């Protein structure tokens, strides 16, 4: 480990060379902007900006791409908190807990929390990468399809915590999310499913137009009918003060345990192949809903700093964690790291255990730059918040057409497809009706994100075991996750029954 830190100092020296530092700053800024613009997202952002890096040397190029990647994670929180449009899937929970705070006039505080949590999460993730990257990656490799399927199953069952007062309605939302994700080509068998003869549906329903419609457009529709909500939102806009937006020392201390828990869990999820920041952020949120002192307020309606902190710490830690299998074994932990892998291969670098030996300057230069990039993103993010808070003072009747334009343009820009804009519109209308009928949208989005991976891993596990369903309980790691999932499902029922019995006894 000591040797690793010596190498890190060498890497920091490489990272602060003028060219690499410039690449890191530019990458961070571009990532932040692209992340904040709804409709682009980390994968598309990295892919769009990949050609820019071709004109510079490989180390500076990958430093810039990494900057875009974690800058994106910072930026995704801005549109989630301010407009209720998650820039990317990891920011769904941030929108759930952050946007209610914007409605209460606490947008500045929510943004500072997101930035602070992103910084701590990212730093802890990079520390893990520096200290025990290789051993962690070996643990990650022990996660076969059965283990990952059980982990995702645990996450899917925990959606129950977001279902609200009516579990049946929550299950409808979850089921709809899974059903929407079924449309298009089946990744395992290459069969086309539920396309009903439409060529536009062959590639399925994309996440970006779905989330823009569900969260962004539906908000304008709801504002049109809910005059009291509009008046209330405008009332808070007049009261927005930057001075009151800063996080107090007391609040930072209060958030620290959440920060650390979420960062560790996020890093762990990040290095599992395919799991990614969304699963990390969601599981951390679920953990906080169980252990946090303010867990009763974490219902997606009131908005809490803890909820934002859990989501942002975990997804930034997962972004750093995803570099562990990428650099150590050449296995991308997420779609964005798959784009980064493509970049590495394009520059003739072969990720794997030998990369650390053959290209130490590159690897440690990259890791060193991640520390610097994280500080740069924090500084830029903090500097941008006053401007964001000022933007929020725009009245809703002026903001509404801008949201509509951003929804249309963002949905189109995703795949340069007009069909995606139609999907966005349909998703917005569906979301409006769901919310009017008291059916939450968040379970639908989370189920939509988690279901394809869950399905793929379940089918892989069953195919490997020749259809033997006991494969999920005979593997210790998988069994552990299943036991946790069932405990989470059964525990609230037992607690409720015990409470009722105790109340009856005390009344008697």
């Amino acid at each position, binding site marked *: 480990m000591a040797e690793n830190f010596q190498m890190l100092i060498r890497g920091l020296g490489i990272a602060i060379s003028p060219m690499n530092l410039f690449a890191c700053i530019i990458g961070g800024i571009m990532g932040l*902007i*692209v992340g904040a613009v709804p409709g*682009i997202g980390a994968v598309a952002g990295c892919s*769009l900006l990949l050609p820019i890096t071709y004109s510079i040397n490989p180390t500076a190029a990958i430093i810039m791409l990494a900057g875009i990647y974690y800058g994106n994670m910072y930026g995704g929180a801005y549109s989630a908190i301010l407009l209720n449009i998650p820039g990317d899937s990891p920011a769904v929970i941030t929108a759930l807990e952050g946007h209610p705070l914007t409605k209460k006039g606490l947008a500045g505080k929510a943004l500072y929390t997101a930035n602070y949590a992103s910084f701590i999460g990212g730093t802890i993730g990079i520390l893990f990468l520096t200290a025990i990257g290789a051993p962690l990656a070996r643990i990650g490799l022990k996660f076969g399809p059965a283990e990952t399927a059980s982990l995702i199953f645990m996450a899917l069952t925990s959606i129950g915590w977001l279902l609200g007062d*009516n579990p*049946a*309605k929550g*299950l*409808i939302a*979850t*089921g*709809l999310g*899974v*059903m929407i994700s*079924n449309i298009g080509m*089946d990744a*395992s*068998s290459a*069969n086309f*499913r*539920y396309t009903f003869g439409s060529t536009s549906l062959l590639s399925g329903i994309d996440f970006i137009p779905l989330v823009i419609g569900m969260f962004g*457009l539906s908000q*304008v*529709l*709801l504002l*049109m*009918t809910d005059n009291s909500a509009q008046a209330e939102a405008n009332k808070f806009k007049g009261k927005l003060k930057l001075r009151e937006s800063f996080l107090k020392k007391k609040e930072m201390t209060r958030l620290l345990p959440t920060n650390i828990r979420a960062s560790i869990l996020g890093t762990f999820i990040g290095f599992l192949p395919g799991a990614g920041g969304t699963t990390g952020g969601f599981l951390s949120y679920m953990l906080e809903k169980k252990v946090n002192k303010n867990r009763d307020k974490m219902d997606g309606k009131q908005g809490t700093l803890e909820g934002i902190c859990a989501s942002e710490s975990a997804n930034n830690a997962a972004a750093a964690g995803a570099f562990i299998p990428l650099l150590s074994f050449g296995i991308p932990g997420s779609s964005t790291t798959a784009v980064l892998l493509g970049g590495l291969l394009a520059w003739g670098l072969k990720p794997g255990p030998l990369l650390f030996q053959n290209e130490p300057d590159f690897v440690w230069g990259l890791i060193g730059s991640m520390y610097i990039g994280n500080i740069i993103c924090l500084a830029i993010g903090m500097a941008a918040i006053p401007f964001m808070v000022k933007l929020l003072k725009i009245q809703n*009747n*002026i903001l*509404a*057409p*801008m949201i*509509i*334009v*951003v*929804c*249309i*343009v963002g949905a*189109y*820009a995703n795949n*340069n497809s*007009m069909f995606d*804009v*139609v999907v966005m*519109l349909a998703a*917005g*209308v569906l979301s*409006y*009706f769901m919310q009017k*009928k008291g059916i939450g949208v968040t379970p639908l989005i989370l189920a939509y994100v988690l*279901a394809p991976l*869950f*399905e793929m891993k*379940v*089918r892989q596990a*069953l*195919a490997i*075991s*020749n*259809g033997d369903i006991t494969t999920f309980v005979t593997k210790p790691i998988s069994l552990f996750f299943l036991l946790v999932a069932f405990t989470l499902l059964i525990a609230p029922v037992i607690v409720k029954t015990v409470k009722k019995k105790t109340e009856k006894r005390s009344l008697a």
Partner: protein
Amino acid sequence: MISEIIFAGLIIVISVIWMIIGIFQLGFWDPSAAAGSGFIPTVFAAVTLVSSIMVIISNLKQKKASNNKKGDTETKENTEEQDLQEGADNTAENETSNINAWKEKLKPIIPVAFCIFGIICLELFGLVITTFTITFGWLLFVSRTEWKKSLMISVIFTLVIYVIFELWLEVPFPGEIIRL
């Protein structure tokens, strides 16, 4: 309550279609590769189906309970003649409030109409004209903002969108007739 039942009914229809396609077309269980393409869709469609039925049942129970309550109140009201007279006077007021309530209910059609207009406009005229028209049109006619202010906001916003999406990200927007 009725709209909730209709919504749940629609979900039931979709779930049944999902299950039929999942079992009979895609295959629930494939002996060679274990779970078939229809395995997960069918399982989750079944969960959705059961949940929708539960929502309908609970709504019908609620409706029955509220009907019983309503029936009791109406019986009491019928015994008082004065109330009947007042009821007749209130009819005109109720009609006006009904029209207003419907107006409020139909308001969400406005953003939907703007979106449909935006889709057509983007296809024909590209990004700049679409962004400007939606922003200016909304500010002027929906928000009732002063035209000079509307114009200024629309121009600035169109410029920002143009710089980000067209100049920087180079998104190839359509524009069959005119493309600025």
